[in-house]
């Protein structure tokens, strides 16, 4: 503490030395006077006394200097002087400063921007208490893939497991809120009573669910999300206890969640959406959908402090193995997945962010190399200045420090300029990019600013060290005697050559990465999705309420909806389906072929099941390969029929004719379904994943009708222009039922590659910046070399060399550097591109065409960048060149 006090006083004196300075001198003079008086009293002559006093003080000037050093902070003072000196120099050469600051602003800005996103998305802990304890649990043999489980399995896990403080259920729920001016479809979730306790959140208003409310007849209670409460209920503080109508059923509001609660577990499992309304799952074991093989529930667990995901998984697998023995036909294996929530949430974007961080790191290194190059060029002009200062007694360390301070000043200015793009990036990503969880929290906060500061200082030191060391090592006598041109120039030239090689190598690595991603995207956009998204409008149409409990009513409703929409002008075809391609969800059902039923039906293959109205295949332009399409005559009275995809046909009946074959669907209890047609494969979930098995059943024949269907409308003109008319037609059937999300299907395709497009755009932008910096670097080195050699070139010309020869020699030099850089870059890229891994599609990480193309591009750029300055060789006037010095 005392030391801090002393330091602060010294700091204050450093900043405002005035009065203290005089006092020090006064005190020393008073000391001398007292001493002299004393000596005279002891019998010395005044001269002797004065001499004695000065001698004992060790010289007035020295004593003053010692006191000044103690009264202030000399280290800080000299750094401040260095900063002032550096700032003066930067102002004196504005061109150099602007180029250097801009270069660094690009390099540092890109890094800070990416870091701020990584900090918010990957590094910051999830906004829950002890977030590391939260895991997602499900059945499945892949321990890293999040899956679902069934109610019966969850009940057993919860009763028998010792690894969890709480195991909570949750599932998708999209109720329709009525009672306002129009019906609104909400996104919500049904959860078990312990869910919010597991998360570690308590309602801001009201209370949490009670265990007894998590039952079939008591589950009519709801907790509202903060946003919905504000938007639909005017933030009414008396909302608790009031009732609201969800799906035309009365629910009592028992609580409101705090504004800070962000349901990330929903986004991590059910896709990019929020959850505004919560209600208990409310199952009991007697219900058919609570069955052991009804795996449609997600599980969120909070681990005990002494458990890890691995130990929890081992325990659950032991339990599940026992359950498998008790119910042999309900499980295919005893696999369990336990995935930390944080990993599941950011897993898909982690690869992209890490690759981008690598790319911006490369850009910064190139910027450093370029700056070092600029500094080396300038160093030659400053050799004299440094030599003079050393000759005047400045230590080498002192000069070195001054040069580095100057550089750090440049880098800090660059970093400050770079904060502008860094502040904008998260917004740009949010506007154009893929959905990145928690992106909204990316901002220029203290850790990010500290990162920027650290990066700036590191950049300043890194780029400045080599030139500064060279400068201070220069031979004093040589420099002072004959000015600039001496042997030191050759060493500097070699160093600059090495820098260019490094720069080319780094650029090549980046360009290869960007090139591979361009080719991936091109390949991906070439992939036939299996349907024709152009000109298709899609809408969500749901039916809710007691009137629609009868499946026949639901079917009649959707038949009527499709018919009325089809009758609209501008509509070519319209049909409904339970799920549409790239919509983000599907229902999987077991496929049990006749004559080949496995002993355990749970081990039969599973296929995506689409429940569709007649004409859906045609409306989506999914090609009919064999057999016939589903028809309106395939209704409840006719024998059940279905279409299968080509992949399904090949896997289930390899080498056989699938037409006329019979299967059971989703268990072996139901009727036999006859295959009447084979249709083309559709990439249903993602364009970059191979198509899965699929089957299409007429919704008129499928035992239970989905209460939410997607209406697919093929239009003659731009699809969205018909949106209002189509919505009106749907409402005209029953105005009380919600219609939502009218979107052009083509938008789904675009969205499914948006992530790639944005990471590609960013990587390409960084690669272009790198290429530009690289060209600038080569240009600088060549033009400097030409300037240095003017005299030599003049002599050669005078001796009869042809200008063309000299130009060629100069170009050869530039190209040699570029080729060395390309060779090094190819080696580096071969090692690094495999980290692109999942970001690539349909192209090898060592794709020869990309490598060759990029190498050629770089060679061409290098040639151009050295040709421009090298041309000056031909314009050298021998007489002038020889007279110049």
């Amino acid at each position: 503490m005392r030391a801090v006090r002393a330091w602060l006083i010294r700091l204050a004196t450093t900043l405002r030395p005035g009065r203290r300075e005089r006092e020090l001198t006064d005190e020393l003079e008073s000391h001398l006077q007292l001493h002299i008086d004393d000596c005279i009293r002891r019998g010395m002559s005044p001269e002797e006394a004065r001499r004695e006093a000065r001698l004992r003080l060790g010289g007035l000037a020295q004593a003053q200097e010692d006191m000044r050093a103690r009264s202030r902070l000399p280290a800080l003072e000299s750094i401040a002087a260095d900063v002032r000196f550096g700032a003066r120099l930067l102002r004196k050469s504005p061109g150099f400063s602007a180029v250097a600051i801009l270069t660094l602003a690009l390099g540092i800005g890109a890094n800070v921007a990416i870091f701020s996103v990584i900090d918010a998305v990957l590094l910051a802990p999830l906004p829950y208490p002890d977030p590391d304890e939260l895991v997602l649990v499900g059945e499945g043999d892949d321990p890293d893939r999040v899956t679902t489980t069934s109610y019966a399995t969850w009940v057993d896990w919860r009763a028998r497991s010792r690894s969890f403080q709480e195991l909570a259920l949750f599932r998708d729920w999209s109720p329709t809120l009525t009672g306002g001016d129009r019906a609104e479809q909400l996104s919500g979730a049904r959860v078990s009573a312990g869910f919010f306790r597991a998360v570690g959140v308590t309602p801001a208003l009201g209370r949490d669910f009670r265990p007894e409310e998590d039952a079939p007849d008591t589950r009519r209670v709801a907790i509202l999300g903060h946003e919905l409460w504000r938007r639909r209920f005017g933030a009414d503080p008396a909302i608790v206890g009031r009732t609201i109508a969800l799906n035309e059923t009365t629910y009592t509001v028992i609580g409101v969640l705090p504004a800070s609660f962000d349901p990330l577990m929903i986004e991590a499992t059910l896709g990019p959406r929020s959850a505004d309304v919560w209600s208990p799952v409310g199952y009991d074991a007697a219900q058919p959908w609570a069955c052991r093989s009804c795996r449609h529930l997600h599980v969120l667990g909070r681990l005990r402090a002494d458990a890890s995901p691995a130990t929890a998984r081992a325990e659950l697998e032991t339990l599940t193995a026992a359950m498998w023995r008790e119910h042999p036909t309900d499980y295919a294996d005893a696999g369990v997945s336990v995935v930390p929530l944080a990993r599941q949430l950011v897993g898909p974007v982690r690869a992209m962010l890490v690759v981008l961080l690598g790319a911006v790191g490369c850009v910064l290194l190139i910027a450093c190399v370029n700056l070092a190059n600029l500094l080396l060029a300038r160093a030659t002009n400053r050799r004299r200045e440094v030599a003079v200062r050393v000759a005047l007694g400045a230590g080498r360390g002192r000069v070195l420090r001054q040069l580095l301070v100057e550089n750090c000043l440049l880098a800090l200015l660059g970093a400050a300029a770079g904060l502008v793009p860094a502040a904008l990036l998260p917004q740009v990503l949010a506007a154009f990019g893929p959905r990145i969880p928690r992106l909204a929290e990316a901002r220029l906060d203290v850790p990010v600013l500290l990162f920027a500061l650290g990066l700036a200082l590191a950049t300043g030191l890194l780029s400045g060290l080599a030139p500064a060391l060279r400068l201070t090592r220069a031979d004093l006598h040589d420099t002072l005697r004959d000015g600039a041109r001496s042997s030191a120039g050759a060493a500097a030239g070699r160093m600059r050559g090495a820098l260019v090689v490094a720069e080319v190598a780094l650029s090549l690595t980046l360009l290869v990465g960007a090139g591979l991603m361009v080719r991936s995207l091109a390949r991906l956009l070439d992939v036939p999705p299996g349907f024709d998204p152009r000109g298709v409008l899609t809408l969500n149409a749901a039916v809710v309420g007691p009137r629609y409990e009868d499946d026949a009513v639901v079917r009649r409703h959707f038949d009527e909806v499709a018919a009325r929409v089809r009758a609209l002008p501008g509509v070519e075809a319209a049909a409904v389906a339970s799920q549409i391609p790239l919509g983000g969800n599907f229902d999987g059902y077991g496929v049990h072929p006749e004559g080949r039923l496995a002993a355990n039906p749970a081990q039969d293959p599973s296929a995506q099941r689409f429940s569709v109205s007649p004409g859906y295949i045609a409306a989506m332009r999914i090609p009919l390969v064999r057999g016939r399409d589903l028809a309106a005559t395939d209704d409840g009275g006719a024998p059940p029929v279905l279409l299968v995809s080509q992949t399904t046909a090949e896997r289930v009946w390899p080498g056989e004719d699938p037409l006329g074959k019979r299967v059971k669907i989703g268990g072996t209890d139901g009727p036999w379904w006859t295959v009447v047609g084979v249709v083309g494969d559709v990439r249903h979930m993602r364009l970059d994943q191979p198509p899965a098995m699929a089957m299409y059943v007429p919704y008129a024949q499928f035992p239970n009708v989905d209460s939410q269907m997607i209406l697919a409308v093929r239009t003659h003109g731009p699809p969205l222009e018909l949106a209002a008319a189509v919505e009106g037609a749907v409402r005209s059937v029953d105005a009380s039922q919600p219609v939502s999300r009218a979107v052009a299907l083509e938008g789904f395709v675009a969205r499914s590659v948006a992530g790639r497009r944005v990471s590609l755009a960013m990587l390409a932008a960084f690669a272009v910046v790198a290429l530009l910096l690289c060209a600038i670097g080569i240009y600088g080195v060549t033009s400097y070399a030409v300037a240095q050699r003017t005299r030599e070139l003049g002599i050669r010309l005078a001796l009869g060399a042809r200008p063309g020869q000299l130009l060629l020699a100069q170009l050869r030099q530039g190209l040699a550097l570029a080729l060395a850089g390309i060779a090094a870059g190819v080696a580096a890229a071969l090692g690094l591109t495999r980290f692109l891994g999942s970001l690539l599609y349909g192209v090898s990480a060592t794709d020869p065409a990309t490598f060759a193309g990029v190498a050629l591009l770089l060679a061409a750029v290098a040639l151009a960048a050295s040709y421009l300055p090298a041309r000056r060789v031909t314009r050298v006037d021998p007489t002038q060149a020889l007279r110049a010095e």
Partner: protein
Amino acid sequence: MSPNTEVWQGTLALMVLKTLETMGPMHGYGIARRIEQTSGNRLIVNYGTLYPALLKLEQEGHIASAWGESENRRRAKFYRLTRAGRRQIAREAADWETATAIVARFLSPRPQKEPS
């Protein structure tokens, strides 16, 4: 000890504080002379290092200063001990005694009992 030794590193501060404690407020020259006298003129204070040391003690708050008039009517800066300074004397004196006791053990080692 040889005559006329320079003050050892690190002990000057303690001597200054102790002098101010015994003598009351004094100016720099007075403190230096007093230290020399107390040592029986066997110590020589380097006046050039005395003033930075005083400055350090003042910055740390162990002493405070004010301009005043000396006995022979010269203007001089007088230092006095603060409360923190008094506590510091106790601390440093204890440290010093421990240090000398340790050195003394090395100089006249007592036979140690063999461990049983």
